[in-house]
Structures are given as C-alpha cells and as structure tokens.
C-alpha cells in the first residue's frame, strides 16, 4: 500500500518538507498539484520531517497537495528503444515519441571497482591537429572543454562527436539554449548519427532541479550500454549550469557554503559523475567530453578548478582555437608512443618553440630589438597558427606530423631545434631545390 501524504509543512525554493513515515533516503515521490504531476526526490530525513526537491520546481505547489512515495530511487528506461530519442532531465519524452517504461534502471549506481578497469590504450582520432598531435584523446578519457560564453564550444563538441569512431553518442544538455539544442539535433541528423544517439536535454527555460539529473540519466544509460560492449561517447554541456543547480539546492537547504557559495561537496559531486568514464575489463567503455564555461574566463573559479582536478586533462577553447598552453590530455602518453616514432618529440618541441614565439611576440610589442632567432620564431609562430592551430584544419595525424617537420625545416636549421639526432635523420625533410 502506498500511503498518500498531504500535509506539506514547508516550501522553500524548490524544496518542500512533509511529515511522513517509512521513507527511504533519496526515494522518489510523486507530487500532485493543480498544475500537473511532478517527481520529487528525498534529500533529507529528520525524524518525521522529509525534505524533497521537486523536479519541476515548487511554483504552484499548495500545502494540501498530495504526495505519494514510490518506494524506489529515480530511474530511467534503458533499451535500444532509446536510440534516436530526445528526453527531458526527468526522463520524459521531449520529442513526439512514446513514453518509455521498459527495463528501468537506477540512477547514480555504485562506483566501478578499480580492479575491473583497464588502462585505456585506444586513441580517438579527431582530425584536429591540436588534439591528435599535441593532446591525443583516448577512449574512456574524461575531458572538459574550458571555455567562455561566445566561443564555439558546442560546435567543437559536435565536430568531435561526428568524427570520433564510437558506437553510440549520448548528449546531455544542461541549461542549453533552445537554438543550441536544435543545432545538436540537426547536426546529428545531417550526419546520419541520430539513429545511434540518445539526447537528454534540459533547456534554460526548464525547471532547475531537472538539470541536476541530466548527467546521471546520460551516464546510467551509458553504463548499461558499455557493459554490453559498446563504446559510448557522452557529451555534456554545460557542467557549470549543473554546478549552479547544485549550489541553488544547497543554499536552499541552508548548507554551509565553502567557496563562492558552492557546497563543500562540489568536488565529490562532480567526481561521482566524471568517474563514470571507464574502460571495462572485458566490456565496452565510456568517454566523457564536457563543456565547462568559466565565469569571467577565470580558471580558478570553483567549477573549472574542481573539474580540472577530477578530469584527465582539459582543452582550453579561446579565441576560436584550442590553446596550446594549459590544454592537456593526461592519457596521451598511453597512445602517442605507438603512433609514429616522431610523435612525442614533435609534440614537445613544437610547443616549446611556440612558447618561445609567444615570448618573442611580447618582446616585439614592447618595442625591443629583435634578434635573428626572434625573427625565426615569429615566422614559426605565424605558420604554426595558420597551418596547425586553426580549427579549420582537418587532417589525419600523420599528415599533421609531416606538416610539423615541414614548418620546422623551412625555418630552422636542424641543429637549432634540440631534437634527438636519430629523429632528425629520419624525418628532416630534404631541402627542395636547394642542393642540386
């Protein structure tokens, strides 16, 4: 018998408190109001007082509305029927398709036993030299794209999704502009990828609490498919909105804030999601790419800061390109030793030279005398920016490495660049038309 309660004793923010018995922590309840029915989740128990966050918000909830506890945690349907479909943050259809209730699975399951993980070893090729050469993306990696409003981060996310060789794409949109949602849907459709994609979309106009469940929905479904042997790519945008929703609920619950109003468990909350990225021993994998916009372009803001400590590197998207400095793929060493013998050396040296180029630029802007070395660096930097760094460049890794050697040899003498002699011997391009 599911008892119905109707004495709400407190409504604050999106959290309602009711007196009830025999309620489990994080259990789901149904709140019936004059404006419709919404799910709510138990977030605190104190004697008889049960506090719930209402997924569709507390607006219009009346103190005598009916609450029915469902005796289960929040769940999502998970089967092949989800493919090609679009859902809200609470798992309701957003397209015109039918409601799915088959094979329901719990959200936020236990963490993977580290002993059941394997070292990731497959590179995901993107055709973007700034990623493929300098910060290779690896299957099962969790990687955020740090960016600021106005940058083409969603375009970058979509492009990587289209070019990556994966079995499935799961997109989680949090606080997404409606246009951006349509952009993703149309891009997936144009490339014929919608049939192996699942979308969980919370738009900016949807209730805040729903935003909290988008990553959990995406990852619970991803986990099921990965266990069936699928390579799943999960795209999340924008995790800063997720963190802001956490903050909103925490403040409502009168939790003591730790840093700029964010709750003390922000790190654990983010980690619980990102750590779902996994390469299962003997099954599939989950790779997570997540956009994190940095308020005020400040990487020390709690959201990007905590994220950086959790994820396996980060891409900075700034000025329309992936920044060579700060961008890092921690797993690149797992794969870039097996691609081509010059990969690591090119990667290291070209970035160091690019750093020197930036210094030379600074020197020039201060009006200092340019040495001949500085002039070479300026030429190098210019070519690096146009031929490798621009996001419009779309070439496979090997071509990109060759291009790197070409730029180096056009500008520098082979003894100037500080590379191991054996590599120089093997890859230094012959000077065209200079000798004979």
């Amino acid at each position, binding site marked *: 018998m599911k008892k119905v309660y109707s004495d709400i004793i407190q409504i604050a923010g999106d959290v309602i408190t009711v007196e009830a018995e025999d309620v489990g922590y994080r259990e789901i309840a149904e709140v019936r109001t004059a404006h419709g029915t919404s799910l709510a989740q138990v977030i605190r128990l104190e004697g008889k007082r049960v506090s719930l966050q209402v997924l569709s918000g507390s607006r219009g909830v009346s103190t005598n509305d009916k609450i029915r506890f469902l005796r289960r945690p929040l769940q999502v349907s998970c089967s092949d029927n989800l493919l090609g479909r679009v859902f809200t943050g609470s798992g309701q259809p957003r397209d015109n398709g039918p409601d799915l209730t088959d094979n329901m699975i719990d959200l936020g399951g236990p963490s993977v036993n*580290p002993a059941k993980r394997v070292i990731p070893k497959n590179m995901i090729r993107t055709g973007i030299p700034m990623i493929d050469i300098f910060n290779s993306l690896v299957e099962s990696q969790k990687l955020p794209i740090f960016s600021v409003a106005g940058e083409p981060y969603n375009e970058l996310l979509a492009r990587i999704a289209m070019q990556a060789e994966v079995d499935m794409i799961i997109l989680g949109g949090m606080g997404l502009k409606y246009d951006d949602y349509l952009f993703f849907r149309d891009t997936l459709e144009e490339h014929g990828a919608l049939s192996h994609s699942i979308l969980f979309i919370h738009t900016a106009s949807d209730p805040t609490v729903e935003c909290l469940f988008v990553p959990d929905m995406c990852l619970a479904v991803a986990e099921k498919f990965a266990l069936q042997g699928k390579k799943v790519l999960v795209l999340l945008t924008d995790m800063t909105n997720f963190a802001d929703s956490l903050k909103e609920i925490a403040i409502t619950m009168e939790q003591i804030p730790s840093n700029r109003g964010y709750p003390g468990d922000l790190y654990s909350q983010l980690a619980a999601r990102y750590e779902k990225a996994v390469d299962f021993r003997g099954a599939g994998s989950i790779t997570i790419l997540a956009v994190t916009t940095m308020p005020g372009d400040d990487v020390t803001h709690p959201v990007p800061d905590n994220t950086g400590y959790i994820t396996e590197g980060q891409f900075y998207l700034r000025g329309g390109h992936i920044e060579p400095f700060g961008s890092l793929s*921690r797993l690149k060493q797992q794969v870039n030793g097996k691609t081509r013998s010059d990969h690591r050396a090119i990667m290291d040296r070209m970035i160091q030279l690019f750093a020197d180029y930036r210094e030379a630029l600074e020197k020039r802007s201060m009006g200092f005398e340019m040495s001949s070395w500085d002039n070479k660096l300026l030429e190098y930097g210019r070519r690096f920016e146009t031929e490798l760094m621009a996001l419009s460049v779309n070439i496979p890794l090997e071509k990109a490495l060759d291009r790197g050697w070409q730029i180096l040899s056009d500008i520098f003498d082979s003894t100037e660049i500080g590379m191991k002699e054996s590599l120089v011997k093997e890859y230094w391009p012959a000077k065209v038309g200079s000798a004979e």
Partner: protein
Amino acid sequence: MSEKIRKGSVFGVNGNMVTVNFDEHVMQNEVAYIIVGNERLKAEVIRVRGKNAELQLFEDSVGVKIGMPVEFTANLLSVDLGPGLLGSVVDGLQNPLYPLAEKFGFFLKRGAYMDVLNYENEWEFTPGVKAGIKVRSGDMLGTVPENMFKHRIMVPFNLSDEYTVASVAAKGKYKIKDEIAVIKDAAGKEHRVTMVQMWPIKVPIKAYAQKLKPVDPLITKIRIIDTLVPVCVGGTFCTPGPFGAGKTVLQHLLSRHAEVDVVVIAACGERAGEVVELLEEFPELIDPRTQRSLMERTIIICNTSSMPVAARESSVYTAVTLAEYYRQMGLNVLLLADSTSRWAQAMREMSGRLEEIPGEEAFPAYLESRIASFYERAGLVQLRDGTIGSVTIGGTVSPAGGNFEEPVTQATLKVVGAFHGLSRDRANARKYPSIDPLESWSKYTSFIEDDKVNLGRDILRRSSDVERMMKVIGEEGTSMDEFVDYLKGEFFDDVYLQQNAFDKIDEATTVERQKYVLERIESVLDKKFDFEKKDEARGFFQRLRQDFITWNAMAIDSEEFKAKEQDIKQRIG
C-alpha cells in the same frame, strides 16, 4: 569484547551523515553498523549530543530509513596487521579490491566487506625467542618470510606492560590465526599471540625505544629533488601544485625509483585511472635493487574520488598505520599520499553536515592540528632491539585555484621538512618535473656538496633576475655577462633539473650519475666565456643543450656515452 551488542535506531539522514538514537551508551569514534535489510553498512561515531549520536557512513546512504536498527561494536576503526599485506590493493577501509571484484563483479557492492589477509595460507614460522625471556609490545617473537623480507611477528602493540614468554611455537608452517606464542603478564594472566593483530588507524604505533632526527638523504633518483630540495629518510615533504602540473606523475616516479624497502601508496580521492596504471604496471616492473616485481614491496590503498567520502578520510590513516607496521620490522617505508587536499575536503564535507562553525574557506577549525598530527607519524625510530626503521611521508596538495595561500597548503607547509612547489608556468612550458627551483625549499641536506648546490642556485637566481630584467629593458639592455648568466641558468634547468619521465634512462638518475653529470655541468656554469655576439652565445648554448639531452638518454656504461662525453668536452673547450 564479549559485552552484549548495544543498539540504536536511525533518527535522521543527511547525505552520508546519519543521526542515531542510542539506547545505552556510545563511545566516540567507535564503529557501528546500520542495518538496511540484509545489508550492514559500516559507520563511525563522530559526535554525540544527548541521546543522539552522529555517524559518518562509509557507504552511500540511499534507502536508509528512519527507525532502521543500528549496532555499536565498541571497536575503534581498525586494520588487520599480519603477513600478506605486501602487494595488496585495498580500499580506505582495507577491503581487498581484487577479491571483491571476483565476488561481486564490475561494481563495488554496498555493505560488502572482506578480509585482506588470507586465513588459510600457511607461513613458515621461525621462532626468535625462548620461553622465559621478558618482552614488551612490539618485540619480536619470531619471523616468517614475506616476499624479500623477514616479516616480524611481534608482541601485540596494544599490550602495555612487561610480559614473560611462556611458550613459543616450534619452527614450522602455521596459519595466521594459529597460536605462535603465549605470554604471561605480571599477574600471571596468559595472552595468546597469533600472527595477526588489530590496530586502530587514528592512533600512532609507538612501540619503539626512541625517535631519532632524520639525517640521511632519501635517494629519489629525481635530480632536482636529490640535488636542490632533498628529502630525508624519516622526513616529510609536500608537493602542492595546480592541476596539470604533474603531481601524480611525480609521485609515481617516486614510488618506482625511491630507494626504500616498502612503498605505501594512498590514492585518496583522486582519479581511478591513475591507480589502474599502478595496478597494471607495478607487477611488471622489476625493482633493480631486489630483482623482484615492484608490487612485492608495495601496498596500494585506493579510495578514488567516486568512492564514499568518509572512507576517503580514513584511507590516509589506514595507509600510515600500515607504513608504521612495516617500520616496526626495521624497514624504511615511504608513504605517498595523493592527495591530502581530498582528505581535507572530506573533513570539510563532514564538518559542514555537522553544522560546525566553519574556519577559512569553510574548512573546520581542527584542520591544522589534524594535518600536523598526520605528518608527525613520519619519523626515524630506533626499535627496542636497536634496529632502525623509518616512515617517510610525502603528500601532494591540490590547492584551490593553484593558489598556495589556501588553508591546506599553509597548514602543511608549517609541518613538513621539504616543500616541492609545482608551478603552472613550468608545466605549461613542458618543463618537467615542474618543481619551481627557486620557490621550493628543503631543510634537509643533499648528498651533493653544499658549494655545488649553491653554485647551481646562484646561477638560477641570477638567470631569473636577468630574465625579468629583459622583460623590461629587452635583450639589448643587458650586458654580455648578464646575458650569458641567463643562458647558463636556462641550460642548467634544461639539461639537469628537467628530466624526461618517459625515457627509460633519463627517468631515474643514480647518485653516481648525478654527481658525474653535475661535475660536467658545473664546468660550464663556472666557465667564463667570451662571445662576440648574443646570437653566438645563444647558438653555443643551444648546441650544448642538444648534446646534453642526447647524453642524458645514454646508458652510463655504454660506448656512446663516452663518445658523447668527448664531444661535449670539446665543445666546452
């Protein structure tokens, strides 16, 4: 022990904090189990108010209901100590992860606890004492071989008086729960001793004669550490750095190359992927000193970021207790904790739930004392039989925003002997290890002579001064001498302080090689050069750098090493 189980019932749930109404009495920090259907969830009492005890739950609290029964155990949170710990991979509560995976599959099952020690294995026991002699806690009764060590079976640490050995088992094979000795206290009461004992993790083991001052350098084979900011056997050091600066890579290098007997790694609230690297690599890597797999000298405590937060807090204590246990056998143990900030954050989360008055950045007021008492568990000790053992502790710190002014870094700096500060600028420029040579410090002494260390430091300081100057007045504003100093500093940094962690040879440099190479480098730093033009000077150092980098990747006993050395000598002139 035999007292009847005290009970209580759940009264409130807030995240991983559970409030419990208790019937009789409770003990602060005792372990309790919350009974959810057929699951028994482990928790620890952390505050008592009236008839309510507040417990931190080591598990996810989903489905916990008001009124559910709770059992109090009268035991503090403890670990099992005995032969078979080396090579184990456990979570923060010492549950072995591989057996768990075998039994429960891909996921960590809530409420599933297993013993780390194997009660069926037999160990070859050799008695070390005879009946009739007097012993105290920590004294050896006999040994069993564990990998390359003689694992001492000791008088349990919790026995405080003097005892007389009544009997000792004969040489032979025993299981760890078998009686291997009986000892009698002054009143004539007998105590059975087995190979296994329990110890509460938050209490330091003090069964030694005296604590000594650490003096000998701990050889890490990382040049910048050994030469400029050394660590001592029995000392402490911390490695704060922003994300992406290479903290974990540095710790992995230390765990592989440091010259110690046992390494305990506490992966505390960090990425699971990094632990997996250790798990897969260590059994394959051979320790050059013992010719055995690195895993045989390593214990990994792994409570990664998505595992329950309260167990994260206990994982560092579990680690240090295991380290102290092996120290009691006269071994040198290195404990690497990555990252102590996650541990501090776990305290902060709990403190927030307890609604304690927050200190700086909402960390609890007791943060500093907890950090201090943790690092104080390091040390060089003389055991009662005269042998020396040590625990060296190195902790990483992950400061919010990479800003070292934050509370965890500051509290740590007060209590450690060496500070290896990682810099984001160096990491961005791919200069690894990204330890800032000018900011970092050490109170310990290197095996490199002082005057050489000072020469290196002077050059670095001058070089950085000139570099700063050049930013204002340009290269043309510097004299040739200043410019050469700048190049020398860069050169020293590039070819000596930086090390390529992914090169088989360059990743670890022995003491002999460090001394040898440094000699050659100092001949450059000391030399007065006459260059006509700055471009000429730059070109000279660029070529020299190329030579040294190539040289660094050559085996010291190889022909090519000698050949390259001749080239270098010629180039220096």
